[in-house]
């Protein structure tokens, strides 16, 4: 549950490791002036498998499966399918990413999406509301739910993992109520459905929705003070608070934003199929979470938008390739891929943490010897 375990200190090549003690000056003659790493080395470091392993994975899958299935894999139909299918999951992954940046977990994303979808379909079947109004109501409902989760976490001081697990079950109840435990099929107008299945310049229109949300989120996270506040809260909440960051608001806000994006994901889902059943939601949680964690091991070593998308699509193409290569459709390949990828990604990202701890220990001040868990402990400074 520790977000920090996925974060990583810059490669040793970029960070003169010996710099951490009192005699740093002596060991660092080279960097006494401005610190500039040669461009070529920076590019090389940037292309290292540790930073963009998912991109290599992506390329590997495309090459391997193109060779295995020369006629079916490398076609625009396959690409269109994978991309349009992936939009909902990717939106949910982005929704998960926002609170995660602030070290809060939103496990209700799957059922939030289901609530949104359910409301769209139910309002279509049981009221005369236009589909667009229903969609807006659905997004508002999800936003409100996010606000509720935020309230439980920030005001009632419940751990986010537990709070959103609870919210998620409550949502499931709502979803079951809406569905009446059967599959509902909406009768949306064509104009609404077109928003889900049209193509623009040969690219599924829904991909643009994802792109829009991604760019907005990337901008906010990486280029505005709000993004700084989110990552500072996630990195060290106490220090952030004492620096003036209103960490409670940050966490709360992150869950509200997460809810809104989940609502949008449900609306997009409804545009694409118009079919709703209570079992829709939970299956989306894991792929989204896996994409975020795998993505967090990419580029910056912290949760980030493009890493998440690349991670998702690398996995998705792998799954698609396996499905095409096997006569039975290989339904088992998806969870297998996701499970393996998640473990590999997180273990890759946490190895540098071990290295950092070792380094920190070596640099510890004489007085800062850690207490031994055993009976003979280090004396706390007194003299």
């Amino acid at each position, binding site marked *: 549950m520790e977000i920090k375990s996925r974060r990583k200190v810059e490669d040793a090549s970029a960070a003169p490791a010996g710099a951490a003690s009192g005699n740093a000056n002596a060991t*660092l003659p080279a960097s006494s002036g401005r610190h500039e790493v040669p461009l070529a080395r920076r590019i090389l470091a940037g292309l290292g498998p540790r930073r963009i392993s998912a991109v290599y994975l992506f390329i590997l899958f495309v090459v391997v499966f193109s060779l295995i299935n020369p006629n079916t894999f490398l076609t625009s139909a396959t690409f269109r399918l994978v991309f349009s299918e992936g939009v909902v999951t990717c939106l949910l992954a982005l929704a998960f990413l926002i609170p995660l940046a602030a070290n809060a977990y939103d496990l209700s994303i799957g059922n939030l999406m289901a609530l949104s979808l359910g409301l769209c379909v139910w309002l279509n079947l049981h009221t005369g509301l236009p589909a667009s109004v229903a969609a807006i109501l659905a997004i508002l409902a999800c936003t409100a739910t996010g606000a509720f989760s935020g309230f439980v976490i920030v005001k009632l001081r419940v751990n986010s993992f537990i709070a959103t697990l609870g919210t998620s079950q409550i949502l499931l109840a709502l979803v079951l109520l809406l569905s009446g435990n059967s599959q509902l099929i909406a009768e949306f107008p064509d104009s609404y459905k077109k928003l889900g299945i049209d193509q623009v310049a040969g690219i599924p229109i829904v991909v643009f929705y994802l792109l829009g949300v991604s760019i907005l989120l990337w901008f906010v996270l990486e280029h505005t003070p709000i993004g700084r506040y989110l990552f500072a809260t996630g990195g060290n909440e106490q220090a952030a608070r*004492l620096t003036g960051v209103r960490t409670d608001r940050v966490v709360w806000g992150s869950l509200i934003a997460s809810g809104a994006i989940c609502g949008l994901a449900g609306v997009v889902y409804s545009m694409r199929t118009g079919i709703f059943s209570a079992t829709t939601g939970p299956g989306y949680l894991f792929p989204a979470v896996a994409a975020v964690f795998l993505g967090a091991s990419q580029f910056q070593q*912290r949760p980030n938008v493009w890493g998440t998308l690349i991670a998702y699509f690398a996995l998705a193409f792998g799954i698609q390739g396996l499905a095409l290569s096997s006569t039975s459709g290989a339904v088992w390949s998806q969870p297998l891929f996701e499970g393996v990828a998640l473990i590999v990604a997180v273990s890759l990202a946490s190895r540098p943490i071990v290295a950092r701890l070792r380094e920190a220990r070596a640099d510890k001040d004489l007085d800062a010897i850690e207490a031994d868990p055993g009976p003979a402990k280090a004396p706390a400074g007194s003299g």
Partner: protein
Amino acid sequence: MPLLEIREMSKTFPGTRALDHVDLDIAAGEVHALVGQNGSGKSTLIKVLAGFHEPDPGTLVRVDGEEVELADPAASRAAGFRFVHQDLALVDDLSVVENLALGRGFQTGAMGRIRWRDERRAAQEMLDSLGFDFDVRKPLGTLAAAERTGVAIARAMWNWEDGARILVLDEPTATLPMAEVETLFRTVRRVRERGLGVIYVSHRLDEVFSIGDRISILRDGRKVGTYKTADLDEDKLIALMVGEAVTRVAGAKAAPGGATVLAVEGLCGTVLCDLSFEAKAGQVLGFAGLTGSGREELLPLIFGAGERLGTVAVDGRKVKAARPESAIAAGIALIPSDRLHQGGVFDMSVTQNLTLTDPGRLTGPAKEIRRGRERSEVRDWIGRLDVRPSNPDLPLAALSGGNQQKIVIAKWLRMSPRVLLLDEPTQGVDVGAKAMIHALVREAAAAGAAVVVASGDDEEICDICDQVYVLRDGAIVGELTQEQMSIDEVGRMQLVGRGNGHAPVA
């Protein structure tokens, strides 16, 4: 023959000799108090005994007349040393029985099942023998402070027939309410009755006199002497600890005395009680005090890191408690003592840490942070404070303690604070960074800020402050102007027993 003989113990760190040929004898069945000011070498001596520091060659340690090699904590334990530290290293959520088993392991029966009944009985017997009668099934967190210390002692002494010879208690009462000190003393006497040697380290002289059989005084790494408690009184002891009254001549410092910027009235915390003072523009005000005097909680309380009683006003306007952002808006800045947990976000870059105080001032029309402006501001600070390595993209964690502290200070200096609060500003930083930080503090005052420094380092207090308040037991017990200020005087005022009147609130 003494139980423990230390001969010619020296310990040299680069640049300093922390222990200088110290001889010490501890008898069986004796409580031997070890006293000395901050930096006198007590900590080092204990760390050597615990096997955390290797002593210099020529050091001799004998237990029961047999020479022992204190290469590591395990060797120290095998030699019969047991330690209870100020931080008791207990787990509040676990029961007393479970806490006792930490580090020792449980007695298990068939299939690895813990023999709870045996464990409980043994734990109860152990604590009974130390003079406690609480239920060992209770979670540790529900016990009184002295009882928790008792559990820590019980754990250190577990199976005392099994080789425990010397119990070292390091500041055991620093976090203990006064009413519970006697409970602890009772326990210590029981340990003594068992024939163990007890080394009792404390800053509190009244305690030393009530529990100690003999007292050894360390000063500047040397032993000043060992005395029977009956042969000393408080004045004599203080004179021995402080040494010759060498009055420091204060350096050329700016004369204090602008308008009052910070006004604190009736401030109360856990230990602090009804504290009032003012800080003026251009002044560096110091707070000295021992650990437990309330010094540690003063600045966070003023900043409003948590709830507080009393009022804090900047330029006449009151500042809300428990709202760091409103303190910051009022112009207060806090450099916290706990850098690791409160000072910075260590996974974030130097740049992002530095501008976190107010990234909004760097934004353009779309609320985006303008990287060029940010970069040039950060480069300016890095150059000004000589931060090394100078790469602003490194994570804060990659810097040394001193350079991290420079960044933490810089992030507040960029706010041009009206009130700059520095808590242990040079703890764990190297000498060069220390000088730099002291210069920055003077500079901030010269620029018109009211600066308040709380520090356990008396030398630091004397070096940079225009005026010093000395804290003891939660109250100001003395005030020294620049002319009266000396390390010895500051040290002496912190020591004299427990203050009168202001008993700490449990």
